[in-house]
């Protein structure tokens, strides 16, 4: 019992580490980052552009987890399930119903919001490591659910679905990769702005009040159950959008792309980026995309070990993640 409580307490501390004031970047830094994100694709090869697209997509997924954990204080190791649902909604709509790729994204968001909200209901009874376990179960179940026989006609079963990559519209003279990058960037920026607005609003304060003290939040009139499930819904909706974008960028969905490994990567990304610090999401995403490659380039046979050592170094040197590194630079 006490061991479990220790873990819960430690986890809680990680959540509490970031005060709300340090949630965003200053205006100057934000504009600089935006300029880099806008200009770099003009100068690099398509493969790099594709990687940058994936960086944004994972950044969105990490940000979604950040709203849930950093905002409302709830853990999730099940984000891969919401990502999968988003990806499949887009793939099925595009390939079976010829829906425009851009229109599938709001549909994903709505479907995943509902899924996350409903999942959040039973999860209300759980907190800390127990909630992490419940979401872990969800992540484990999802690939198998996607392989179900009676869904095979729509999902393609184990084989998955191939997704058509969209061309740039209005005859714009840019490659598919570049167009998709800018499309993803626009969606990412919108989500970032909406998320910052949300966390700074009455609803966001309710999330953080619950994270810090549920009984006091309730005494102030905050409907704890409602806001906890809303946080799950919002997080799932944003993760679903990331899943949709991912399906379009990768041009393929299959059950085994969305295993627990993805969920753990996103969790890792959140911790490396700094729990509760939204700009850190992109740093965390960069870590989970590029560090495994770097590890492999250092030692092919021992890449897992090298990754582990690099991760350990990050946790040891900057336990609060990129946020801490950024504040040291200032």
């Amino acid at each position: 019992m006490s061991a479990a409580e220790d873990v819960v307490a430690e986890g809680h501390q990680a959540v509490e580490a970031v005060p709300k004031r340090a949630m965003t970047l200053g205006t100057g830094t934000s504009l600089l980052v935006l300029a880099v994100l806008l200009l770099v694709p003009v100068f690099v090869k398509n493969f790099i552009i594709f990687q940058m697209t994936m960086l944004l997509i994972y950044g969105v997924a990490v940000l979604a987890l950040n709203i849930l954990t950093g905002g409302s204080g709830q853990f999730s190791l099940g984000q891969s399930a919401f990502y999968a649902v988003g990806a499949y909604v887009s793939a099925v709509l595009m390939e079976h119903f010829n829906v425009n790729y851009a229109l599938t994204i709001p549909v994903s968001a709505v479907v995943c919001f509902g899924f996350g909200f409903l999942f959040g209901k039973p999860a209300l009874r759980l907190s800390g490591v127990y909630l992490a376990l419940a979401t872990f179960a969800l992540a484990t179940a999802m690939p198998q659910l996607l392989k179900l026989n009676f869904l095979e006609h729509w999902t393609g079963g184990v084989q998955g679905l191939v997704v058509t990559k969209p061309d740039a519209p209005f005859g714009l003279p840019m490659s598919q990769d570049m167009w998709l990058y800018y499309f993803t960037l626009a969606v990412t920026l919108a989500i970032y702005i909406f998320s910052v607005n949300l966390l700074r609003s009455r609803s966001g304060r309710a999330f953080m009040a619950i994270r810090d003290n549920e009984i006091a939040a309730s005494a102030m009139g905050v409907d704890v159950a409602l806001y906890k499930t809303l946080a799950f819904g919002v997080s799932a909706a944003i993760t679903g959008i990331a899943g949709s974008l991912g399906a379009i960028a990768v041009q393929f969905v299959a059950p085994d792309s969305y295993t627990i490994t993805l969920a753990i990567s996103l969790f890792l990304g959140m911790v490396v980026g700094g729990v509760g610090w939204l700009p850190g999401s992109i740093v965390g995403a960069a870590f989970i995309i590029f560090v495994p490659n770097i590890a492999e380039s250092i030692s092919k046979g021992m890449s897992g070990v090298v990754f582990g050592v690099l991760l350990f170094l990050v946790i040891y040197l900057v336990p609060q993640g990129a946020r801490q590194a950024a504040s040291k630079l200032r």
Partner: protein
Amino acid sequence: MLSGSNSPLLFIRDVSVVFGGIVALNGVSFDMHKGQILGLIGPNGAGKTTLFNCLSRLYQPSSGDILMEGASILTRPPHRIAEIGIGRTFQNVALFPNLSVMDNVRVGTHARTSSDIISDSLRLAWIRRSETDVNKKVHEILAYLDLEEVAHTVVSGLPFGTQKRVELARALAADPKILLLDEPAGGLNHEEVYVLGDLIRRIRDERHMTVLLVEHHMGLVMSIADHVVALNFGKKLAEGTPAQVQADPDVIKAYLGSKDQ
């Protein structure tokens, strides 16, 4: 100021709370009238905090009823207590430690405002207007309680006395009709207690609130309360003016020990 003949603001009748086999409250009844400062006293385990938690709906009485302005509060979930005008502070300070003073007080306005996640995300015009009103109100309260200097400080780093004031500010932000104060003097030094007593009286007079004060500090209760209810072992032992309760032989035996504690 006291309106004794009118119907009470808060009406507590035969409230009993049983935990397992232990009777924490046993048929406690008293009324609170508008504008009163009612002191609830008693030694540890007398049932003061249990009664408090019934009022904020954290505990469900096993029998009896609590009426606020004539309507029972016992069917309300805990988060729907603030909206009917019952605000509270906590014994050991229950602030939101990672939020700034201002955000803590802003959460206090939750029951008096409305929003939804879509409008909040898009920062629609009506949300911006509502936030402007909230900020105005919060600044007024911070100024009232002399907290403006620390408005943007994260509360966990503030001294205990200041945190207690922040908690009071958060409670005031919900415009309560009844303010429940759970041992507000706990952990304060002699001078701070004196200032606090003055402040509670000012809040009652200037902000037209009714105050239920649970307190160990007899000096504070006896100096500011209009009416005192004494509990022991979950039962009401005495009720009356501070002088009456202080003179009650049972009370002296049970609680006060010596007169000038």
